[in-house]
């Protein structure tokens, strides 16, 4: 990987849930010491189940949620040290696409107003006619035509709204887009269209994607590298194919085993649920390794010591935070 455009180091995000009726402040640690790099034009898939903190991570990087500690280094600048005023000009390079395409558009704004909002904010020099031209160009690029300009979001289907959301995110040609479950709410046939659109836009503009999703199949399809989050910590990170070929964290293996394949023969032949139970509450995480309560390989050390990321390969591209990653072949998952 060339020099990263984004380096996240030891990021910690906590939510203060306030005092209970009795007892001390309840603090939820959503992101607990996450580190990773992202190169220009690269797609990093972030997978995890609900409560893993994957959406929080994306929003914390864009400073939509304040981080408590750590660094978010964007092109050599630590975003955490910038005030909102200093942050504003950088925002034209950092965009986001949301899960619910309709909710992401102001119901009282026309499509033109929504897509032009980044221009109105960052390019005050542009005239209205120039803006209309730019918006119309991007509408065409995402597969809609000019008849959409003066219509309202409720007139479009979910897939079309997501195209509008992508046009809004792309219009300033940013260098990073956080896709927060961007295709999860869409039907399969539409999901494929949007996945292809994102891949094509990346090829053409070299935008980097942080692709957050619970859908491993889509993540595998789009990502160059994948980061697996469990309870706010990195369980495993590595090049997509290495991670799928040789998943080193037992949680990664369980996730992969849990996805039902669209193939009856393969589906019947396998033991499905490798995992019992559900993720523990991030309000009260287990000691040591957060995954140990559900892990088939857990031993004593897992309860006492939090595992650190260890390199699996020689280049240290593939890392896993597991005391027993060397024993992965003993688990029949």
């Amino acid at each position, binding site marked *: 990987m060339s020099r990263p455009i984004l380096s996240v180091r030891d990021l910690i995000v906590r939510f203060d849930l306030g005092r209970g009726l009795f007892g001390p402040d309840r603090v939820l640690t959503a992101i607990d010491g996450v580190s990773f790099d992202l190169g220009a034009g690269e797609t990093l898939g972030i997978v995890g189940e609900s409560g893993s903190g994957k959406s929080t991570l994306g929003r914390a990087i864009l400073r939509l949620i304040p981080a408590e500690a750590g660094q978010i280094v964007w092109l050599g600048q630590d975003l955490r040290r910038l005030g909102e005023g200093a942050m504003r000009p950088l925002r034209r390079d950092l*965009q*986001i696409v949301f899960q619910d395409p309709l909710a992401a558009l*102001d119901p009282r704004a026309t499509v033109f107003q929504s897509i032009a909002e980044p221009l109105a*904010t960052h390019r005050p020099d542009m005239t209205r006619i120039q803006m209309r031209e730019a918006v119309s160009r991007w509408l065409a690029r995402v597969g809609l035509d000019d008849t959409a300009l003066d219509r309202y979001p409720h*007139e479009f289907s979910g897939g079309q709204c997501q195209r509008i959301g992508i046009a809004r995110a792309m219009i300033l040609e940013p260098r990073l887009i956080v896709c927060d479950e961007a295709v999860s709410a869409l039907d399969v046939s539409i999901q494929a269209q949007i996945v292809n659109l994102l891949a094509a836009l990346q090829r053409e503009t070299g935008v980097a994607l942080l692709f957050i999703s619970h859908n491993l199949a889509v993540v595998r399809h789009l990502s160059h590298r994948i980061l697996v989050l469990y309870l706010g910590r990195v369980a495993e990170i590595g090049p997509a194919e290495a991670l799928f070929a040789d998943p080193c964290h037992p949680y990664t293996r369980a996730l992969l085993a849990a996805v039902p394949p669209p193939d009856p023969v393969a589906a019947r032949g396998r033991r499905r649920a490798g995992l019992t139970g559900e993720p523990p509450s991030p309000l009260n995480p287990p000691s040591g390794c957060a995954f140990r309560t559900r892990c088939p390989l857990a031993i004593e050390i897992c309860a006492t010591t939090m595992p650190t990321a260890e390199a699996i390969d020689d280049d240290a591209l593939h890392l896993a935070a597991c005391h027993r990653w060397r024993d992965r072949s003993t688990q029949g998952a």
Partner: protein
Amino acid sequence: MTDAAALPRSPGGRAWFRLRRNPSAMAAMTVLGLIVVLCVAGPWVIPHSYDAVAWDSILTGPDWASGHWFGTDPNGRDLLARTLVGGRISLLVGLIASLVALVIGVSWGAVAGYVGGRVDGLMMRVVDILYALPFMFFVILLMVYFGRNIVLIFVAIGAVEWLTMARIVRGQTLSLKRREFIEAARAIGVPGLTIVRRHIVPNVLGPVIVFLTLTIPEVMLIESFISFLGLGVQEPMTSWGVLISEGAQNIEEAPWLLLLPGTFLALTLLCLNLLGDALRDALDPRDGR
């Protein structure tokens, strides 16, 4: 949508479209419009002035021949003229005080809700404290300090009504703030005040307009009450509230004094309430369209 051709596109246009299909709303609007036209234009048309004393016909009943179609008051002034002129005052108070409440309440509530945290806490405590002040005490204080003045009534009533408006808007803003399109605007880098102006205010306007139609009658009642206490408009100027209070004092010998202004006020309040209900339905259709 089935009849996409007939259905307007913009959300506001759709609400208007649904409102037009509601017969009671249309009837209410027609009657309301009629009352406004009567009050505004009527006093120029009818033969009597509201403050002209007719010494020959004091406290007479409705009489076609004399031109006092709805009778006269104990001072021999034409009741119709007084009711229409009083209507100007009552409607004006209702409108202006509500607009004052709208402007202050929406800005206060939207800013408090959007900024959140300590600012929100402070701003809403101010609202709480003002709520706790006895309203009449506040009005009497104003009257004593600045003298009796019609403008002061607008200000005094508006200054009290905005509190509820601010609470409603803040609540709406809190739920809007979590919506993704607000987050999208933040991610784009749109400044906070612009987000409030461009995204929050237009989206809270629906519930606010409904509340407004219910505030106007309330304000008119408060004005009646203040005038009833003798702190409101001054003779010979009048308002529906003043007329009704006079009518109530003379109900035994001259019931028409209560009947005419009472009918006007009741009709106006009824129409505004009907309109408010219809607006609520039009803006929040359960059909989802």
